[in-house]
């Protein structure tokens, strides 16, 4: 293999849809890493879902060989990074495994929220950033604007920009040459002990946990006793290898290399992204910087639509967790929905992805309850409890204060939607901290928002107000005290656990009314009067009535009809047994499911 000075580790960062994956494919094709024939579009995104949504969820490294114009043959390790804020920690670890980054900007879209966020992440990792204006062959491309934004917003000299089109293969050689000449050779190679950074992992049912890692110093081979520095866990290395992009076994992984480790570790949670692998017999004393314990931020209940699917759902969640240590779940039960699971996710997209994979890859029809964030509940005794399920909120009398997580969001929007977006931010209890002009047509708002408020429809409304031109990126910020209350929904005076939520006091009434209305509309007409109420600690703040059943009577019912009629009534009665009982009201559980689905 080539020596350390001839290795370049880099990644591609971009806003969603700016053409990252297509460009990666071109690079692989040009370097003959993957022949054109084998190259399915978007080669690196192996999950169907990733391909469909044009996003990368898991990192897919690949090693390319490139004979540069300087006559040397270089080893180029390309890291494909997850492209969403939910995975920002994973992004930061992938970036930490590189020395350089290609910053892709769609020539027609210009700099967007995630472009800025990703660029800042790359700067923070001290990466050499190479700007690439992509899709320059689009008729709507606006090069002048892109170059100006590069200078104004990202303070990168426009002279550094490479003009390219992943689709047509324009600028590919320029990019490869820039990687060779501008990205520095691997750093920290002279550290006295071996260190490798875990940036992802994969679970294989035969080989156990396969860690993806970037070696910074030392060398690793099969038979070595490795040690994970965060936990002190030791394990024998069974195999090391590189990505071509398929996994290919090699004898040794040395400084600067990107590859995989197969060890005796079988439990995914034992190898965490961001941990440092060293060797037991010459253990490093300092971990590579940036390790962080990842905690789920968003929670919801997942329930099988068919109760008989419970075991199937359990198995599906277990399998998904093997490849996704950031996803957590535990069993819970709900009066309205039966037996299910409380699940924790990094963010909304992560939640959506897991739900979608349960449905598609594991073929289980599921329903999810309203997402909730993790609240910090400070009680009079001074203890702080973390609550991710509104049902578990302690008696309000014991609560001193409730703190909720907030985010710092950068929102890029066209000037003319400023008024509506400000109203949206206000509605969501946000505070705009400052406004920056991006160019003649666009502004960037920096605002603080409660995480809770962006869970459901914030992004959709942002897109709708700005006709698709707005974009947002955020980072988690502090926990702040807020006037939050638990709102319960009562059907016939019985609380329906699946609809309990923690809301800001000022919004409780409106939200309560909307929910009551929806439930009243969806619950099938009832013979008895059924009240739907929203309540805060016993105080009713909104109410509605389920529609009264108007007609359910057989017209002809004579002697000859009695037996048949009894059979029908018996069926009707049995049907009720299967419904959820609220006092003496029977409500089909699919009514709850419908309400949850419409929100």
């Amino acid at each position: 293999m080539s020596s350390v000075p001839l290795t370049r580790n880099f990644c591609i960062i971009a806003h969603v849809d700016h053409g990252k994956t297509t460009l990666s494919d071109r690079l692989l094709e040009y370097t003959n890493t993957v022949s054109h024939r084998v190259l399915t579009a978007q080669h690196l995104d192996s999950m169907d879902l990733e391909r469909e949504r044009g996003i990368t969820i898991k990192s897919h490294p690949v090693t390319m060989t490139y004979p540069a114009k300087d006559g040397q043959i270089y080893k180029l390790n390309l890291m494909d990074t997850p492209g969403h804020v939910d995975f920002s920690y994973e992004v930061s670890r992938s970036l930490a495994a590189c020395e350089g980054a290609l910053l892709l900007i769609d020539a027609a879209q210009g700099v967007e929220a995630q472009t800025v966020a990703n660029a800042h992440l790359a700067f923070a990792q001290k990466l050499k950033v190479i700007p690439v204006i992509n899709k320059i062959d689009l008729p709507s491309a606006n090069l002048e604007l892109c170059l100006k934004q590069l200078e104004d917003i990202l303070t990168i000299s426009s002279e550094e920009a490479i003009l390219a089109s992943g689709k047509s293969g324009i600028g590919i050689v320029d990019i490869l040459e820039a990687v060779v000449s501008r990205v520095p050779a691997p750093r920290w190679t002279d550290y006295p002990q071996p260190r490798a950074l875990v940036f992802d992992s994969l679970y294989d049912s035969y080989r156990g946990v396969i860690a993806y890692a970037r070696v910074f110093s030392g060398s690793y081979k099969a038979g070595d006793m490795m040690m994970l520095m965060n936990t002190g866990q030791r394990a024998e290395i069974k195999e090391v290898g590189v990505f071509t992009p398929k996994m290919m076994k090699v004898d040794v992984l040395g400084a600067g290399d990107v590859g995989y480790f197969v060890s005796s570790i079988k439990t995914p949670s034992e190898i965490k992204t961001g941990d440092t692998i060293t060797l037991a017999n010459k253990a490093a004393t300092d971990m590579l910087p940036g390790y962080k314990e990842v905690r789920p931020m968003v929670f919801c209940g997942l329930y099988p639509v068919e109760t008989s699917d419970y075991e199937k759902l359990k198995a599906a969640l277990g399998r998904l967790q093997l490849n996704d240590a950031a996803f957590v779940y535990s069993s819970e039960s709900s009066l309205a929905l039966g037996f299910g699971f409380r699940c924790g996710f990094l963010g909304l997209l992560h939640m959506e992805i897991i739900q979608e994979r349960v449905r598609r890859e594991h073929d289980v029809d599921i329903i999810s309850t309203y997402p909730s964030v993790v609240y910090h509940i400070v009680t009079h005794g001074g203890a702080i409890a973390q609550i991710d399920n509104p049902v578990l909120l302690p008696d309000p009398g014991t609560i001193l204060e409730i703190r909720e997580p907030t985010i710092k969001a950068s929102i890029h929007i066209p000037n003319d939607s400023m008024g509506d977006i400000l109203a949206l931010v206000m509605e969501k209890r946000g505070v705009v901290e400052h406004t920056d002009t991006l160019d003649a047509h666009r502004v960037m708002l920096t605002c603080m928002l409660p995480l809770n408020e962006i869970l459901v429809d914030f992004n959709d409304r942002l897109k709708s107000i700005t006709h698709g031109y707005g974009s947002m990126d955020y980072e988690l910020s502090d926990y702040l005290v807020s006037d939050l209350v638990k709102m319960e929904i009562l059907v016939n005076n019985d609380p329906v656990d699946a609809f309990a939520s923690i809301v800001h006091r000022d919004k409780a009434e409106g939200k309560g009314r909307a929910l009551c209305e929806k439930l009243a509309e969806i619950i099938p007409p009832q013979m008895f009067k059924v009240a739907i109420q929203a309540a805060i600690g016993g105080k009713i703040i909104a109410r509605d009535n389920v529609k009264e059943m108007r007609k359910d009577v057989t017209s002809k019912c004579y002697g000859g009809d009695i037996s048949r009629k009894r059979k029908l009534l018996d069926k009707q009665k049995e049907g009720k047994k299967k419904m959820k009982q609220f006092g003496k009201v029977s409500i089909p559980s699919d009514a709850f499911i419908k309400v949850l689905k419409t929100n």
Partner: protein
Amino acid sequence: MTHVETEQAKGEAAPRPGLYMHVPFCASTCDFCAFYQIKPTPGMIERYFDGVERELELIQPARTYGTVFWGGGTPGLLTAGQLRRLGGLVEKYLGGRRATEWTVELAPGSVTSERLEALREIGVTRVSLGVQSFQPRLLDALGRQHNRGQIDRAYERVRSAGFASVNLDLMFALPGQEEAEWLADIDTAVGLQPDHLSTYCLTFEEDTALWVKLSQGRVKLDPEREAQLYEATWARLAERGFAQYEVSNFARPGHACVHNLNTWHMHEWVGIGPSAASQHDGWRGQNVSDLEAWAAAVDRGERLTAEKTCLSPALLAEDALIFGLRMNAGVDLARWQAVSPAAPWGGVNALLDRMVADGLALREGTRVRLTDRGRLLADSIGAEVMAAFTAEEVVR
């Protein structure tokens, strides 16, 4: 209580059993009809008569009947001679008395002076005409074989033959029927001055042509529209002097159908003929719906009863409530508590109280009856009653 309700409540004391005879013949099948009926051949009619004779003999112990009801099919498909012969078979079981009430269902097209004369002769007191609608377009749509002229002529003949009571059957909520058209039908019917009216909301029963149309989406169910039509019907008939005594039945004083009241009060009746239902001697069941199988069985000296159910006092009490609440006079709980003291009355009473609280029922002394709104929900209420009767059984 109104006079009709008093009349109806009187029916609660156990009378002589009713006799229902199913005449399974029809010239054609209407789109909405789910009854067992076949196109007759002379041989079949002979077979039917023999069977009726045998089956009547078979009922043990030999008893006399208080009311008679001939339904079908359409008994009017029999000739005057055949009607006399069938009447002769019945007469032996009336104990030398006239029947209190003897109803015969007739299609307007089958009403002839000869047949009416025969019916009067054998002691028939009540004729029920299957009019269904006065609108030619709707009659056509239902697949009915008669027209407006035939209705008028038939009614005229029945009246002049001097039957004590005449009923007209009408149908509403027909596909394409406007509310105004239906109210006009009611007025036309009332204008003929019958003694009794039965108004049926079109029901989609399996194995009918209409069911097929419904399942193919060519006809839509609209409960709200049906509810409105029910209400409009009840209001209009009350204005016109016809008191409602059951979901679909209205009568002038003294003309409620005794035979039907008898069945709703869970008394006994004997069903003769293929597919006829019976309830007597502690069981309920239905004859096999096949002329040949039925006839062959009675020839062998047995009644081929499908789905025979044993009637415990608790089951009778349950059914008395389910079916009795369909009547405007409702049910006397005291009577059924006496019949079945062990039934779960606690749960039943709780249900009834809840119904009262929600405006579905009224309680007066030991009687319970439904409000108009409750009557429109009689099936749901029936299912709740059934649940109340079974719930505590589990506890016990």
